[in-house]
């Protein structure tokens, strides 16, 4: 597909079903668009657009809204960020989310932007989703599948369409979120950190400049070695971040201290 330089030249394909959307995306190698809040700034910047966009439709079954299912809270990918912030089920399952979302983009962008879009671009929600081990529900060219987010991100096909995700029943878990940006609101994230205690274990994940990462080694250290070698926490998390693309040492230092802060909020309550 050849790119175009003007919005007026973009064709927006309007499939009737998710399956049709996947087929069109595959046939034309065209990106999906829903809220368009990430896609448009990127292309306005370089004035170079994909020739075709595949429009997603929030009225397709299970694509929008929140509901409780047998495995937890099911969230439609086309739910807007502001809908999510307001939703009572979100408040019940994810108590810190509503306040945290004030720091995600601005209110107008949250009204348009979707939770699915945010997850896919490694946005502020992805750290929390990773720490919660959400399962994604994906429509692909070979059919539908459900799998852990972390796995999907590793093997994702370009035409995979995210229908939604399931958050495990996390009511009663303790969780804490923190974003480090350049300013207090409406800032790109430098580092967003999620810390979740599921009653047994602590889970940590980070997104931002260095990319999305579940801090598995740090989690393991917190559980298994903290008692034996308490002084080494900093070295463990620093090594893990550095090994996974977090190049800025000052930012790693900030993350280390933010993690200590969140751990003391979440874990020390046990």
């Amino acid at each position, binding site marked *: 597909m*050849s*790119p*175009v*330089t*003007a*919005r*007026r*030249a*973009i*064709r*927006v394909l*309007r499939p009737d079903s998710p399956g049709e959307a996947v087929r069109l995306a595959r046939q034309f190698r065209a990106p999906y*668009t829903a*809220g*368009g*809040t990430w896609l*448009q*700034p990127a292309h*306005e*910047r370089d004035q*170079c*657009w994909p020739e075709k*966009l595949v*429009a997603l439709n929030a009225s397709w079954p299970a694509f929008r809204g929140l509901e409780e299912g047998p495995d937890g809270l099911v969230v439609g990918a086309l739910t807007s960020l*502001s809908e999510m912030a*307001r939703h009572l089920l979100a408040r019940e399952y994810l108590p810190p989310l509503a306040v945290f979302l*004030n720091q995600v*983009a*601005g*209110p*107008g*962008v949250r*009204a*348009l932007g979707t939770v699915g879009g945010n997850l896919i671009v490694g946005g502020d929600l992805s750290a929390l989703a990773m720490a919660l081990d959400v399962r994604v529900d994906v429509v692909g060219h070979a059919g539908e599948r459900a799998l852990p987010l972390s796995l999907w991100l590793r093997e994702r096909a370009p035409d995979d369409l995210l229908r939604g995700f399931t958050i495990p029943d996390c009511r009663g878990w303790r969780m804490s979120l923190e974003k480090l940006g350049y300013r207090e*609101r*409406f800032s790109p994230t430098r580092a967003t950190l999620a810390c979740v205690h599921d009653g047994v274990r602590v889970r940590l994940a980070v997104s931002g400049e260095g990319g999305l990462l579940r801090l598995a080694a740090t989690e393991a250290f917190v559980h298994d070695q903290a008692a034996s070698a308490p002084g080494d926490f900093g070295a463990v998390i620093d090594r893990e971040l550095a090994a996974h693309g977090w190049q800025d040492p000052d930012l790693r230092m900030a993350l280390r201290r933010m993690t200590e802060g969140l751990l003391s909020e979440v874990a020390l309550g046990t």
Partner: protein
Amino acid sequence: MTRPTQPEICTPERVTFKLNGDVISQRVAPATTLLDILRDSGRITSARAGCRIGRCGACTVLLNGEAVPGCLVMAWQLSDCTVQTVEGLTEDPDFVQVRDALATESALQCGYCTPGIAVSLVSGLRQQQSGDAVDLQEAVAGNLCRCTGYGGLKRAIAVLTEASSET
């Protein structure tokens, strides 16, 4: 992506939506922004292209009642939607309340960002009325103002908050 060298063909589609109470039905390329549709209509000057990437709030309008940046809404998303701009809100009691607070508290200088701020505040007030605990300061977190340092705006919001807590 390599840059194209030839001019491109446009594929207009009909879009029908309500603007300030009037039905608008026109053929337009589907990725055209709502902001451009409004500005090109010749009727709207309150929504402004401050950044074109949804980061300044100067083009904020109400889309189905929610405050959104008009530069991030594409024509294909508009079908059967309701759009309100300041031009269509001048008789609206919420807007009048916001306007009076902004004027009295000198919440503006050059005024270029102000209609967008007013729309965000109207949206915030209405969410409050529908029972949501919305902080009006959060409602304008996406509206940049370079002149005032937000002092007058903070005072205007204090006035609005006091008025709404009395009712």
